């Protein structure tokens, strides 16, 4: 779950770069960047949850 979370973080950032490089300035670029941020938020949630689960396992 942790690895998946970090992969989602990197994937979100890659989408941001792709939006900047490939899309013209305008609503499509903005929505692409916002979607990529959503993916990053999902990745961050997964990483937090994996560490929470890891802490419980340690106990």
């Amino acid at each position, binding site marked *: 779950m942790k690895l998946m979370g970090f992969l989602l973080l990197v994937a979100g950032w890659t989408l*941001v770069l792709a939006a900047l490089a490939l899309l013209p300035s305008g609503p499509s670029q903005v929505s692409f960047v916002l979607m990529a941020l959503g993916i990053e938020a999902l990745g961050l949630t997964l990483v937090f949850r994996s560490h929470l689960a890891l802490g419980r396992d340690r*106990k």
Partner: protein
Amino acid sequence: MTPVSPGELSESGFAICFILILLIPCSAAGLALINAGLGRFRNAAHSMASALCVVAVAAGAYFFVGAAWQGYAGQPAYALRAAGRDWNWIGAGRFFLRGVEFGGASSLAALFGLAGAGLAAIIPLGSGADRWRLGSSCASTALLAAVTYPLFAHWVWGGGWLAQIGFLDSGGASAIQAVGGLTALSITWILGPRRGKFNSEGMPSALPGHNAVLVLLGCFLAWLGWLGLNGAGAILFTGTEVTRAVLIAVNTTLAASSAALAVAAITRARFGKTDASLCANGWVAGLVAASAGCAVIRPAGAVIVGLIAGALVVYSVEWLELHLGVDDPGGSVSVHAVAGMWGLIAVGPLAALLPGGRPGQWLGQLVGVASLLGFVLPLTYGLNWLLNRLSRQRVAIEGERQGLDLYELGAGAYPDFLTHNDDFWQR
């Protein structure tokens, strides 16, 4: 606004910028005192010694390679060509500061970078307090000051791709604060919580700091340091006129004040009493949040930035501890990462003083935040995870019980101090 090229600063501008940079070590001293005061008394000397050592290591690492990779606008850099444009991603300067012409703006940028690397290195010490080995914190700092910090600082201040798309960060809310704060988050994950912090049901117990006076004194020192940090950064990296240093100082002070007052009001309303350590965290969070847009927002905007930064700190500290199991004794993640990213986002809607208004400014700021989360966090976590595989970063259980002062330094900060049974975690 475009970065100043070497030689563009007037003599008086150079002198003022130099004096402002000389104030930055006060912010490092302030953060070191805050970290020491929020830790336990048996780790106080270790905390201060760690701060001094990581600043020294950061200076060395930045001198060896960091300055070359950070570079400066207008100096050589490596760029990738994609989709018809150049993506400037890393400086191509010479190692050991050999390409720096002392006497020009590039030498000021190198001095600023040296101080900034030291400041960023102190931030994770707050989250790793009471359990992070001295050697490991130094090794982690070497990676931070040689790789993570210069790389992101190049993107923001060295004419890198983020600067090219219009991302704005005058005083280091991203390159210094958020990079340090996200490294702090990685460190808390890798080290795990302190012994006795969470019970078997996962509920946290309070482990209060040992000296509130140190913490609050640290806030005053940090204030002085931030006046220099924000002023020098704005003049050097965003081409702000020297005369605007007054506005920067006013905005910085207003943001810190409103953040501290917001925390005082919220904690009083929720808990019946004002929480001193959270007020200190709020003060610093206000300083951090102001760093991004201090040169381009109006004083009323700085108050809004500070109020929201203060509120964010209260709820973020609670959320991280109660719901996400993060043990961050110094509040570094909330104060530097969360407030830093808020300050960056706030530049979008509040940057009223930008030439031309820049209607698309907020998109550039969002891309900067996305880069912090999507690039810096995985990078800094990966580097520290590797370091932990090579050599365990957390101190042995005996060291945690005995206290890092005695265990790693051989002497305590307060040799005449009486100890109480309830100061020790349950064995």
